[in-house]
């Protein structure tokens, strides 16, 4: 009997086919998760009680239709550039001009009596025009959050020097899946403490309709 060799399928091009598919999926894959600025909207309230706030405690920002930024605080009004915003917001929040009950324990500012009392009293208010561009608005929001984060970082380091991390790093560690639940619980407590110490008091007025 003639020995018949089983015909072999040539698998040499298998790799090519697999590569082709691989490249297709590589290109279509989006592994990145979205990221952005988290904010909380104020709830709709029926009773609009007017809360009385001292003028010195407000850092009033207004963005007009030409994307220019006006700042009104401590009795002065001026046009500022967005790149100056972070520094002036920090100066305002960190001022610590309060006395007695309103004295700010940890502020390192100039204690200007015409500017904010303490972290808790200081309010940043933002009003924009309907024609303001969205990216300007986001830049302003970003700078304000940055100012708060700067202070929170500082306060976190001061309050918990043993951890050797700042607020943002601690928050990242908290949301990291690899952190153990015990560490998470500890971090959460500390993060909350700092959030209460430096609250984000940020209000958005409804835009001018014109």
């Amino acid at each position, binding site marked *: 009997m003639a020995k018949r060799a089983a015909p072999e399928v040539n*698998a040499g091009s298998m*790799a090519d086919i697999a590569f082709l598919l*691989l490249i297709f999926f590589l290109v279509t894959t989006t*592994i990145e*998760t979205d990221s952005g*600025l988290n*904010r909380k909207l104020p709830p*709709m309230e029926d009773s609009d009680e007017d809360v009385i706030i001292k003028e010195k405690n407000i850092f009033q920002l207004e963005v007009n239709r030409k994307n220019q930024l006006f700042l009104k605080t401590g009795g002065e009004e001026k046009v500022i550039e967005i790149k100056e915003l972070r520094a002036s917001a920090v100066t305002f929040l960190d001022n610590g001009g309060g006395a007695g009950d309103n004295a700010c324990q940890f502020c390192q500012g100039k204690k200007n009596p015409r500017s904010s009392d303490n972290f808790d009293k200081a309010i940043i208010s933002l009003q924009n025009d309907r*024609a303001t*561009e969205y990216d300007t608005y986001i830049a302003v929001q970003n700078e304000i959050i940055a100012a708060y984060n700067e202070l929170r970082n500082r306060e976190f380091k001061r309050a918990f020097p043993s951890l050797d991390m700042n607020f943002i790093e601690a928050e990242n560690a908290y949301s990291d899946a690899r952190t153990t639940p015990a560490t998470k619980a500890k971090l959460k407590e500390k993060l909350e403490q700092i959030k209460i110490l430096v609250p984000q008091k940020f209000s958005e007025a409804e835009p001018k309709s014109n």
Partner: protein
Amino acid sequence: MSKFKKKKGGEMPAVNTASLPDIVFMLLFFFMVATVMRQNTLMIENKLPQADQVEKLDKKSLVMYIYAGKPSTNFKSQYGSEARIQLNDKFADVKDIAAFIAAERAAKREEEVPFLTTALKVDSKANMGLVTDIKQELRKVNALKINYTTRKGNALEGLKK
């Protein structure tokens, strides 16, 4: 000293590539599993603004997306060039948002509803009037957790263009 003598006819043996397809298939399966196909076809221009104080938006199942921006070139003749809202796969009006949120909430388990976040993917050249309208609608239906989705980058650099 014959130990170090060269073998006669010492040709390089061919590398066995028989397992190459296996390796490639393994990679292929990984990417097939990891791939998330885009859920919504964008009908608008959607160039997100840049920011650097960002937080990650994980738990994709708990996010509702609202897109806004100018209609892309294919739709310009039909929908004009003013910035519009897109919900799921079609253009929508501001007053459709309430229904959209209600539908999204109904599709989720009840205990998940308080954790739903609304991601606003708004084109950087849109105006704030539209965004404010969206925000007002969201406040009306009590969807207060929002996220302005941005690209990572320097916010001030992004403005210069």
